[in-house]
């Protein structure tokens, strides 16, 4: 049932991706070429034009085009980038590793920190510790990611000179190899990662806190306490595992948003990930690349949503039986 529903969603998205550009005024190719009045009209060579016409099969009937599009997707064909004059799939894959590296490491940090702080806050609800944590986590985490990134660059890179302004590594670093390269990559990674951690922390923190609060009011926690089990054992063995249920599923869902979530941070720090690529595609009006990136993101999100749903059912026997 669940799987079928997600398949329907995915199908709707795929179709939207196909039909939307074709519903635009003018024929799709003229739209692909860019509006001549804008700053970046794209001039096509004969070869690129051939590639485009072939990919979109624009002379064929719509039903045939649609079928070809779906079959192409099944074979991993995401189209041909006008701006880079290269297949979209290989462009996206080339950038994927940086995005995964940046968002993956950041996720490990903010999830751990969020659960830890959330549990502390719940344990001390209403006290100075709780209020202090709440106010500081919210205050640090409410900065829009693009603005936060700008400020970090200004203070840490330009004023203090402690970190590079952007990029993922220094120009010569790829050749350097060994420890020097690791150090260089980490040096570039720190500020973007810090921005991600700060903007994502409040979500996990608040979720853990409130989930813990809910669990701490349950009968089995009271039972455990009245049996004389020590407090930290009640917290760690009885309360936390149950409180983690919604957290695990939320985290699974968030993985789907990783590419998108890092987009602002990547753009501000000129990090060579997928988000930057998609952003540049938008700026250059490279619609095939934009559509390919969009599809990949959607597939990610839908897949992880499904995973979260299934995981939740596995972890919680009450849902499984229902």
């Amino acid at each position, binding site marked *: 049932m669940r799987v079928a529903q997600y398949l329907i969603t995915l199908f709707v998205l795929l179709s939207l991706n196909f039909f939307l550009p074709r519903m635009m005024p003018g024929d799709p190719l003229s739209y692909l070429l860019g509006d001549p009045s804008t700053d970046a009209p794209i001039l096509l060579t004969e070869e690129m034009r051939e590639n485009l016409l072939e990919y979109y099969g624009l002379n064929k009937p719509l039903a045939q085009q649609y079928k070809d599009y779906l079959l192409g997707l099944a074979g991993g064909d995401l189209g041909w980038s006008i701006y880079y004059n290269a297949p979209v799939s290989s462009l996206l894959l080339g950038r994927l590793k940086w995005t995964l590296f940046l968002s993956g490491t950041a996720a490990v940090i903010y999830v751990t920190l969020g659960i830890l702080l959330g549990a502390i806050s719940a344990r001390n609800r209403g006290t100075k510790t709780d209020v202090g944590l709440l106010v500081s986590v919210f205050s640090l985490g409410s900065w829009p990611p693009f603005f936060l990134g700008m400020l970090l660059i*200004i203070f840490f890179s330009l004023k203090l000179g402690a970190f590079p302004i952007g990029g993922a590594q220094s120009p010569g670093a790829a050749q350097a190899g060994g420890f020097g390269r690791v150090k260089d990559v980490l040096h570039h990674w720190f500020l973007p990662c810090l921005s*991600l951690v700060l903007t994502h922390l409040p979500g996990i923190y608040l979720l853990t806190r409130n989930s813990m609060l809910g669990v701490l009011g349950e009968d089995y926690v009271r039972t455990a306490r009245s049996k004389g089990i020590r407090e930290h054992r009640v917290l760690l063995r009885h309360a936390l595992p149950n409180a983690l249920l919604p957290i695990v599923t939320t985290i699974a869902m968030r993985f789907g948003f990783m590419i998108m979530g890092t987009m602002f941070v990547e753009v501000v720090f000129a990090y060579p990930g997928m988000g930057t690529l998609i952003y540049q595609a938008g700026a250059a009006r490279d619609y095939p690349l934009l559509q390919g990136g969009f599809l990949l993101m959607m597939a990610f999100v839908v897949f992880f949503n499904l995973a979260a749903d299934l995981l939740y059912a596995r972890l919680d026997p009450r849902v499984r039986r229902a």
Partner: protein
Amino acid sequence: MSRLLGVIRGQKLALVGLAVLAFFGLLAVFAPWLSPHDPKEMDAPMLPPTGSHPLGTNDIGQDILSELFYGARFSLLVGFLSAGISTVIGVVLGVISGYYDRLGFTIMRVVDVFLAVPRFPMMVFLAAFLRPGLWTLVLFFVLFGWTRTTRLVRSQILSERNNGYVEAARMVGASDFRIIGRHLLPSTVPIALVRLIVEFQHVILAESGLSFLGLGDPTVKSWGTMLHYAFGYPTIFISDVWVWWAVPPGMCLTLVVLALTFAGFSLEERANPRLRRAWRRGRITDTPEHG
């Protein structure tokens, strides 16, 4: 109204949040009278702050302080309209789907499909093709904003409608309309308020994010657009220009988001015992989908 005040009373964080919101609301409403200049009028570009231009001028010579006031107008208007409309739609559909079983089933299937669509990527995609203005933006946000409210309101109605007092009302011959209006609808007020605030926050962040990426209407004055142009200016970080060009819109955005966070959090704490159950499913505020 007294119910509304009752929910808010005694919550310091909520009061701080609402005060900040009210402040920006006033700026937005009175922007034309507060602004020293028309935000589209052009003077010399890149002027530093002076008496006539308290925050200087931007790269095409427009007064930055006036831009800031008009930006409050656009950002808050989009947020308020989108969040308001989608909450109303969400509550109405939620009540209907909770009260009428067969209709409810159909509505929930639609909700399921919408919920599986990642909102922000979808917005970026649509915006890249359609270059939205105010009403297109509101339409997008409403289209993807009502579903969570519907789901929460529905479960509230489901748990409420089998209570004794609803049965009793039915027994004495109250109409469906009266039962819903007098008994069921009021019980959804706390959920609706929390959802309104969360939605508001999401919309403001998403709108400014789109504008920052250059996917908004380039002629509209919004905080995101201001940051877009400031960030795109080649020497923005080298001189001190960022202090009066990039920081004010960024700080305004941050303050509004923070104020909404505080207000939403306090409401939720207050509305707790009832909301706590729903919380454990992890879906009430599910965190903003910004970066």
